[in-house]
Structure formats: C-alpha cells, structure tokens
C-alpha cells in the first residue's frame, strides 16, 4: 500500500495513532459484538434465503404448472437476500464508518457526511471531468479547510445505463477546492485521447486548445481554455511537473478544471474510496483503516504537491 508522502500527510498518520487508540478503537470494540452476531445471523440467513427462493418457486410451479415459473425464485431470493443479509450488513458498515470517520474528522476539524447528495457531480460532468451519467451513488464526503483552502472530497460511482447495458463512467474521488478569487476564464485539463480522440473531443468545443511546452505533459494531457493567457498563468512549467508527479504518486488518473472560483478534480481509482473492507476480521484492527487514511491524505497530497495554497494567488 502506498503511504502518504507529504509532511502533513505523515503528520496525520502520526496523529492517527493517538486518535485510533483513544477514540476509534473503543468505539469499534463496542461494535465487535454486533459484528459477531451478524456473522452468525448471516450464516443462518443464507439458508433462509435459499429456502424462501425454493419454496416460492415450488408454490408458483404448483399453481401454474409452468416450468418457467421457477425463475420466480430469482426476484424472491434477491428480495430475501436484501432484507436478511445485505441490509443488516450495510447498517453495521454504516455504523462502523461513523465510528471511524467522526473522531478522525473531528481531530482534523473536518466534516463528514456518510450519504452526501453529490449535487455538484453534474458540474464535474459539464466540465468533462467525468463522463455522462444517469445513475449515481455518493458516499463518504469529507469537507473542511486545509492550508486556508476550503475543500470537499467525495467518493462517487457514476454509471450510464441504457436499454441493454450499464457502464461505469467514473469510480473514484471528486474533489473541489474553493479559491479566494474568481478565475477569468475556464480551463480544463483532460486526459490525452490520442490523435482521433483529441480531434473528436475538439469538435463543438467552445474552448480553445492550449498547446503547452512540456512534451511529457502534452503526451499525458490535453488542455482547453477560454483564456490562453490565464491557462498558461495557471499551468506554469513547475505546475505541469507537479501534476505529473502527483499522478505518479497517487497511481490514479487525474483530470482537473479551473472555473469560476473553484479548482475541481476527478481522481479515478476504479474502486470504492474510504473502504473499510470485509467484516470477517475484528473491527478494531489498525490495518483495516490504513486504506481510509491513505485515501484521506490524498487531499493533502493534492494541496501540497500542486502547492495550491502558494501558487494560485488569483
């Protein structure tokens, strides 16, 4: 697992030990009994789910004398699974997340929401930071101030569903930073889509392409802006270097946009961020939380590596 690299992130990790021992571990230990009970119940409930599905299929078969009616077992089984296994598990997962995030965020003066509304995801889509979606799921929003910058970070899973298929268009973190002043124009840093992808992406685009000097950056990204000078003011050679370094550090694809008074960023993880893992092992295990801390410290990595606090003094 990649460990936090910036000094602030390392400092958080040091503080995390204290917060974990003093506040999180007791809360998790208190919930461990629930976890064991749920584990036992789930083992029993699997038999119930199978029984409900089987009985409903047999009943329908006797009533209709039609072998196709056996498929009736599927929705009934799924409903029983949701009611008897998925819902209680989700309830415990939510409770464990609260036990972890509330003290952790309190220690950092951040705010935590388990089920955010994700209302600004449409804005990310408008800026081409995520693909077009019609199904969305948001979880674990952390917001607050860091180095004088107001930020929010949310785990998002966005899908595009049509008559036949459902396709994931984005699975990762959406980050927004509020700047002290408005940008004059709109500048978007997209992933490079190859010759054809870039050509198609440019069609109907109101923004102009910005050709930058760094060949490494140009290979990785395509920049579009309504203000050629401001785009270069924001994307200095040093900033370009740092963005490439950040992507390498996070091991994830990053897209960003400067618009109005915000810097918006999508970080593609292709997994759930802030995951607490499976509930098989004891809850108060520090290793379980390492992934959460790594995800949380991304916000420090972004601010520190890109030097957002120092660089963008618009």
């Amino acid at each position, binding site marked *: 697992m990649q460990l936090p690299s910036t000094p602030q992130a390392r400092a958080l990790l040091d503080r995390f030990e204290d917060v974990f021992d003093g506040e999180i571990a007791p809360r998790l230990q208190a919930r461990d009994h629930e976890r064991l009970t749920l584990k036992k119940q789930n083992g029993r409930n699997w038999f119930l789910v199978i029984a409900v599905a089987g009985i409903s299929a047999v009943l329908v078969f006797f009533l209709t004398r039609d072998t196709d009616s056996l498929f009736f077992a599927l929705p009934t089984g799924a409903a029983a699974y949701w009611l008897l296994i998925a819902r209680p598990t989700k309830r415990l997962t939510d409770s464990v997340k609260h036990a972890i995030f509330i003290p952790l965020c309190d220690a950092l003066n951040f705010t935590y929401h388990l089920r955010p509304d994700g209302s600004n995801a449409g804005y990310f889509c408008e800026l081409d930071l995520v693909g077009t979606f019609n199904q969305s799921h948001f979880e674990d929003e952390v917001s607050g101030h860091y180095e004088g910058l107001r930020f929010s970070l949310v785990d998002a899973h966005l899908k595009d569903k049509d008559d036949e298929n459902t396709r994931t268009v984005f699975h990762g973190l959406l980050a927004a930073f509020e700047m002290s002043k408005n940008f004059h124009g709109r500048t978007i840093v997209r992933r490079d889509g190859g010759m054809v992808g870039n050509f198609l992406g440019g069609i109907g685009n109101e923004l102009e392409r910005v050709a930058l*000097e760094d060949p490494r950056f140009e290979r990785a990204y395509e920049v579009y802006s309504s203000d050629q*000078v401001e785009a*270069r*003011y924001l994307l*200095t050679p040093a900033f370009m270097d740092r963005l490439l370094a950040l992507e390498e550090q996070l091991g994830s694809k990053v897209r960003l946009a400067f618009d109005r008074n915000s810097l918006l960023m999508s970080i593609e993880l292709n997994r759930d961020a802030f995951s607490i893992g499976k509930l098989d092992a004891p809850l108060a295990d520090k290793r379980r939380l390492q992934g959460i801390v790594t995800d949380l410290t991304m916000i420090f990595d972004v601010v520190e590596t890109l030097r957002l606090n120092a660089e963008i003094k618009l």
Partner: protein
Amino acid sequence: MELGTLLLIVVVPGVVLYIWYAKLISRRNTAREALSSVDVQLKKRHDLLPNILKLAGRFMTHEKELLEGLTALRVRVDADYDRADPAAVQAHLSAGQELQSGMARFFAVAEDYPDLRSAETISKAQDTFTEAEAHISAARRFYNAAVSDLNNAVEIFPGSMIAGWANVKAMPFWEMENTDHRAAINVDDHLK
C-alpha cells in the same frame, strides 16, 4: 486532355494552396492576438509604475538616474508601434524586457532603503508587480507558442512561397535578453 484530368491538375493544387494560405493567415492572426494579450498585460504593469516610482522618489533621492531611466523605458514601452512590422515588434518587446529587468534592479536597490522597505504600500506594490510579471510571463508563453506555429508555416516550403505572395512575415520570438541571472555568483561579494 480530358476535363477530369484538367480539373485534377488545376483544382487540387488550387485547393491545397488555398488551405495553406488560410492556415498562414489564421496563424498570423493568432500571433497578433497573442501580441495583443502581451500588450494588455504590459499595460497592467505600466499602470502600476507611476505610483511605485512616485513613492520611491520620496525615499530614493540618490537613485534619480535609475528612476528617470525607468520612466523613460515606460514611455518607450507605451509608445505605439506597427504590429505588422517584425522589427517594430522586436523593438517593442525588447523595451518591455528592459523595463522588467529595470524593475528587478529597482526592487533590489530598494532593499537598501529601510524607510521605503517598511512602507506598506511598496510591499503591496511589489506583490502586485510580481503578480503582473507572472501574467506577462504567461502572455509571453502564449505569444512564443503562436509565433512558433506561424514561423514554421512561413518558413517551411511551400509555405515560404505562399507567405511571400501573401506578404505574411515571420515574427520575432520574445526571448529573455537579460542573462545576468545565469551568471555564476561570486559568494565573496555577499560575504563582505
């Protein structure tokens, strides 16, 4: 000769020539747009200068020559010039560069005047000036990118031929002329 062959001989080169010509004109216009952006940013910096120089004049009584030099440079940069004439553009950009170097020298000299340094206005002015310089630097990158595209189109055959007919000229790059900062530093100078 068949009509089709004739069309092929006349029309295809005609279309190619027209596309090349359109590309040249559009790149020249982009370079001029970039030059205008440079001027907008230079103007912002020029607007800051009178106040800075006025305030400095009160304290830096022994630096009359430097202050007068800066005022003269400001007038030179402000002067109108022919944007279609590469030599005039070069002279304008060089004046802008000289003013930038002059201002860097001014702020360095201002360090020797504690009264001036402690004036809050000059400290704010220096911050705003640094900000303006960052914008000028961005405008310079835009200008140089546009000029690079234009000059490639003008200088690569058959662009060189078409540019001659269309009177499209290569434009000068805006390069950093002052290379003082690259010179090796003599540590002894700072330890006296």
